[in-house]
């Protein structure tokens, strides 16, 4: 039985889709069988970030409405044999996602894959709550910035109340993924500190992904950043996060902390 992970945040533009693709690919690069599910019905983008946009035949809504079989809607990645995408619908809206339909799809995926990664839409409405509904583990994607932290706090509340796990009285495993972390701004003291965000949200840290041109380049060419440039700083950070997801203990390095001589003299340690 595979693990179902929801990648969520409340706020838009923080890096959920980027992280879903990068973590999904990182796990698949390790040989695990992974499916990344786009829950952003009406505004799909995961297909574009993963470079599969020209090959979408059927989508999640088609499967839920019985217009296509699950196997027909799954798109296998061209570069990684064990990585699959279940795209969202672009032409229909979120009302087409029924709780029963989502449950059926997730149950089937859980049987066939090691990891089912649900890329949540922004907001706290239907799409977001359905994406988190069946999760075993939640990755809360947060930027070191006030409104993102506030929205993450709200989402954590939903994870602890609106999910199946919560309703059954179980504890939802939650991890914080701090993304778009800008070492230069951190250095100037203009960005919330890692320990501040951790203290406020009080969930364990899965990783810190630096703000990087490599992410933009990867989305331009249609490859998860862990595939586009596996040596780049964000890719390395995602690989580490993927290993922590699998239970390994790897110390988290704050981007920019491994600076040269001057950095060491003038810099303050962040975590």
């Amino acid at each position, binding site marked *: 039985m595979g693990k179902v992970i929801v990648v969520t945040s409340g706020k838009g533009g923080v890096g959920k889709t980027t992280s879903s693709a990068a973590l999904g690919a990182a796990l698949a690069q390790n040989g695990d069988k992974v499916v990344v599910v786009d829950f952003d019905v009406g505004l799909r983008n995961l297909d*574009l970030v993963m*470079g599969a*946009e*020209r*090959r*979408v*035949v*059927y989508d999640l809504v088609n499967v839920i409405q019985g217009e*296509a*079989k*699950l*196997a*027909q809607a799954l798109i296998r990645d061209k570069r990684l044999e064990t990585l699959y995408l279940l795209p969202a619908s*672009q*032409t229909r809206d979120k009302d087409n996602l029924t709780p029963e339909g989502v449950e059926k799809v997730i149950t089937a995926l859980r049987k066939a894959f090691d990891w089912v990664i649900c890329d949540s839409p922004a907001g706290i409405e239907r799409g977001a709550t359905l994406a988190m509904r069946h999760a075993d583990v939640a990755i809360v994607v947060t930027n070191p910035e006030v409104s993102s932290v506030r929205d993450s706090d709200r989402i954590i509340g939903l994870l602890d109340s609106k999910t199946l796990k919560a309703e059954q009285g179980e504890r939802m495993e939650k991890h914080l993924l701090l993304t778009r972390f800008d070492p230069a701004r951190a250095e100037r003291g203009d960005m919330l500190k890692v320990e501040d965000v951790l203290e406020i949200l009080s969930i364990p840290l899965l990783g810190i992904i630096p703000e990087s041109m490599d992410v*933009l*380049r990867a*989305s*331009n*060419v*249609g490859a998860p950043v862990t595939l586009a*440039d596996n*040596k780049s700083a964000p890719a390395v950070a995602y690989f580490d996060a993927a290993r922590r997801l699998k239970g390994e203990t790897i110390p988290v390095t704050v981007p920019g902390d491994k600076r040269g001589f001057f950095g060491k003299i003038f810099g303050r340690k962040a975590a």
Partner: protein
Amino acid sequence: MNFKRFFSRPASAPAARERLQVLLAHERVANGDSDLLKTLRDEIMAVIAKHMQVDGDKVSVKMERGASVSTLAVDIEVPFDGGKKAA
């Protein structure tokens, strides 16, 4: 930052532009409900369903949208008794 890597890579923006042009050209017609590829897909699937049970493992549909040409590939595994329509 690795400067050698940084400067030796081709710019990625042209790839982004090309991918978007193809995608949006297709999506604009699709939203107008006159996507030929999709119509073909649906009608072919309807014909297949008339003769055999459309099973996810036995019928695979692949599409690839290109700038000037798109391809639709329907792969059907027809069982020996495929002629007998399954209820």
